[in-house]
């Protein structure tokens, strides 16, 4: 079964986490459509096609995998911005973070997050979680109209 793989925006400031996520996705051939933003500002630059992302293909990612603790603009602020923008608000956002602090959970859901995943400390569990996230949001889930599909 060759499913269509859609673009994922990974917002993560820690290069090690980026590497580990990409390795986990690569294992299941899910990594080729991942765009990495290293902080909240870059994530917004990507979403609004500005800065380094001026020339990117149009359309929203199929999912934004969003860390919460980020330099400059934090994850909750990015989420708030996405949800308050007419063109972005339908984009699925999954918080992927280290913490299961209740106030983060409450705030994220209040702002309309689609899912909240705590990165497991155990690497096997981490790989499984990332793989399932990639498969579900990148392949199985049908994103809202206007999302970027895979270049065919």
């Amino acid at each position, binding site marked *: 079964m060759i499913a269509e793989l859609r673009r994922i925006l990974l917002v993560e400031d820690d290069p090690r*986490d980026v590497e580990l996520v990409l390795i986990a996705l690569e294992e299941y051939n899910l990594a080729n459509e991942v765009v990495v933003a290293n902080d909240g500002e870059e994530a917004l630059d990507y979403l609004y096609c500005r800065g380094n992302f001026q020339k990117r293909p149009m359309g929203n990612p199929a999912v934004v995998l969003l860390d919460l603790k980020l330099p400059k603009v934090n994850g909750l602020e990015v989420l708030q911005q996405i949800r308050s923008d007419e063109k972005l608000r339908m984009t699925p956002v999954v918080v992927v973070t*280290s913490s299961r*602090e*209740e106030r983060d959970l409450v705030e994220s859901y209040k702002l309309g997050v689609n899912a909240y995943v705590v990165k497991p400390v155990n*690497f096997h569990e981490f790989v499984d979680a990332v793989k399932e996230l990639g498969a579900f949001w990148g392949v199985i889930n049908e994103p809202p109209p206007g999302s970027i599909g895979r270049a065919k």
Partner: protein
Amino acid sequence: MKEENKVDQELIVEIKALETKNKQPIQNTKLIIPLAVTMLVMLIGMSVYQIVKYLLFPDITLIQSNIITILFSSIVATIAAYFVLRKQQLLLQKTIKEIVERRRAEEEVKKLNEDLEYHIMQLEAANKELEAFSYSVSHDLRAPLRHIGGYADLLQKNASSVLNEKSRRFLMEISDSAKRMGELIDDLLRYSRIGRTEMQKTVFNLEQLVKEAQHDLSEEADGREISWEIGPMPEVYGDRSQLKLVFHNLISNALKFTTPCVRAEIVIGCTSDKENEIEVFVRDNGVGFDMKYIDKLFGVFQRLHSAAKFEGTGIGLANVQRIIHRHGGRTRAEGSVDGGATFYFSIPKPKEDK
């Protein structure tokens, strides 16, 4: 002197304010009796004077009589005025004293309130700091751990063929240690959360709660011979989910420390049912503990058994104690080496009107 004058002035203003508030002068209401007494004394005085005058000076002239009358009236009026003024002064002093005392009391209450507010502010600040601290631990400490575990696993996977037995074991130890530290951090965060979350108190049946906790742990009891004895228990007033954690921890401990037993015996019941509180116990026939370490039993990350013998981080009983203390109860334990252990805790009973 100036200060005193100022205080006096202030007091007079306050008395005036009191007077306007009561819509009549303070003196008038309270001076009716001395005034009436004075009038009576004057009436009686005048009568006595008339009688005495005619008895002593039957043929007195009109001028003489008038002079004596004026003199006598003046004396009586002076005496009466003296009493009225004195009474008025006393009343004024009493009012002033009352006002001063009330003001002192008000100032004391104000000061106490300020002290209280200051302490609350400090507590709130400490709580905020603690929250920030645990938030930071939760976020920042877990990430490097995940990386250590992750890269160790990747190395094991990519290079395991070129590594010798010993090196492979080293990698395994790194992974295991990272995993264990993750568990410790999670436990510590949970412990700190118990102290910070607000309690949701309700009245509920304890027996039902024990059965639920027992059911949740049924996997750990699978395939073992265990005799359960759960006595009748009354209703309590407390945070249901926190008290469930108490039973979960105590029963989980009982199961864990009876693993060497051929037949585990776990008894849960109520020892005393007093007017205000009840005492509950969880007893097992497991490996027990030495009473000389009793002080360490409820401490955070304190363990009386090696990790190799019994798994665990040593947070369970610390959580039990913290939850029970938050409910206003106490914890205690009894045990002996290889003689089993009994853990007791008390919790307040629901009040009648609840």
